[in-house]
């Protein structure tokens, strides 16, 4: 009873709160980093250096009026933000923050596939939200989102297969342990896969330079144009939670998960003083910083360019990488 219900439930409560709090601060981090990139100060008014902005924003969003457009499909309009947020949070149930069972909610054999499958459900929120609004820009945005997600999911999944071949397991804890056995992060063994998954991750989470479903300048915000208040912020939460998920997947697959850097070099053993979960979260935040950095640096792609990159560049490279990995696996 205690082990099957109470302990997992406690873990879930802690995890959900941690994610939601880190999302609110991630928004602040994004605003601050972009401001520094553009020689501005960013939010400064609420709290010291704008730190409390992270709390002020959610309060504002909750207090705002919740509007449903008159000719919207009310049922789907209501369910869409939920369908977008729930998969983003469910994925965290298999993310291992450390080797000890204390640091993950469940450890399933097909962990990696579970993440890929559940994140692919998240797109329904975007598609249905845009459709149910009964408005032309959100509908265009939905069409873009569905095409973009399908295209990039194929590339990312094929690339992940080559990493699975290297690790020999789909289990996330097993993949990190395989990197300990190999003595090197898979990011060094599979540099092409590392870059491909990162680019695909940018596209799947609708981040710059692939944020075409949102594209403020052409689509006035895209699928969430008609949403307001808390429902809008659910979409927002889902997007940032997905960014964290992608970062966590990249950390697990390519950056050694919770292991300290240089796991097999005796000189660097003092890194082990810092507990694994801090390393894990630290690595995630480095990647999140790169996400934001890219947003501040790169302009948005045109839509046909986006599709060309997905189908004509990423997928062939992913297939080639898979073949080479297979050959290397047989030869060595």
């Amino acid at each position: 009873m205690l082990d099957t219900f109470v302990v997992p439930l406690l873990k879930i409560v802690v995890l959900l709160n941690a994610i939601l709090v880190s999302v609110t601060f991630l928004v602040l981090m994004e605003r601050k980093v972009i401001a520094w990139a553009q020689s501005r100060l960013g939010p400064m008014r609420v709290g010291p250096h704008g730190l409390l902005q992270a709390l002020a924003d959610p309060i504002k969003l909750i207090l705002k009026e919740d509007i449903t457009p008159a000719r919207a499909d009310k049922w789907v309009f209501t369910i869409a933000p939920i369908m977008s947020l729930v998969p983003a949070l469910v994925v965290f149930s298999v993310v291992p923050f450390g080797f000890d069972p204390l640091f993950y909610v469940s450890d399933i054999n097909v962990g990696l596939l579970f993440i890929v499958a559940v994140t692919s459900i998240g797109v329904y929120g975007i598609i249905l939200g845009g459709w149910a609004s009964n408005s032309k820009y959100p509908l265009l945005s939905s069409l873009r989102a569905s095409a973009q997600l399908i295209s990039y999911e194929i590339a990312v999944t094929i690339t992940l297969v080559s990493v699975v071949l290297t690790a020999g397991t789909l289990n996330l804890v097993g993949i990190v342990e395989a990197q300990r056995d190999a003595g090197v992060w898979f990011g060094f063994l599979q540099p092409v896969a590392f870059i491909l998954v990162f680019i695909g991750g940018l596209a799947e989470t609708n981040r710059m330079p692939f944020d075409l479903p949102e594209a403020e300048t052409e689509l006035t915000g895209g699928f969430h144009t008609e949403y307001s208040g808390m429902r809008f912020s659910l979409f927002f939460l889902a997007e940032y939670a997905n960014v964290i998920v992608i970062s966590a997947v990249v950390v697990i697959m390519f950056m050694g998960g919770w292991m300290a850097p240089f796991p097999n070099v005796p000189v660097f053993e003092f890194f082990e003083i810092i507990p694994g979960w801090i390393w894990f979260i630290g690595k995630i935040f480095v990647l999140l910083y790169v996400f934001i950095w890219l947003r501040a640096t790169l302009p948005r792609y045109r839509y046909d360019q986006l599709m060309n990159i997905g189908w004509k560049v990423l997928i062939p490279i992913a297939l080639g990488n898979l073949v080479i990995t297979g050959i290397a696996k047989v030869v060595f």
Partner: protein
Amino acid sequence: MLDAVVFYTLAALILGLGILVITARSAVHSVLFLVMNFLLIAALYVTLNAEFLAVIQIMVYAGGIVVLYLFVVMLVNLKRDPEQHVDSRRLGRVGIALALVVLAELVAIAYAASTRAGGATVSGSAKSFPPGIQGGNTEELGWVLYTDYLIPFELASVLLLVAMVGAIVLAKRSL
């Protein structure tokens, strides 16, 4: 006991959603019910300890194919209710004929199952795996697919390839 409760609850929900899929007025609602249907079928696979199949079910059907359905449904944008079919009597006759065929099939399966029940059970016909393969059905599934069922597997892949090439040829007027 608990297994039975879970199974019948899931089965009832799946059938109910299946009925909603074909009775829903709006095509998008119909697709939504279909997604939920697929998710529950995945849950059914989990209760059978077929984790891999469950995840593939979600990934391929719920996450891939139905997204394409939605894409098409939104492109054609069915705002009006579909018009009544002209010859409803003929459709009714075809429907009854099809229902009879399905019924005959179900009876045949039930009969075959009842005659077989005494002898070979399903688990008795399962192949034994070479030693060293353990821990999860992903490996077992891969093993079986690439040894015993290699030719059907390859044939299915070729069929998909043909469909893909055909779609490209049809879509592109000038190659």
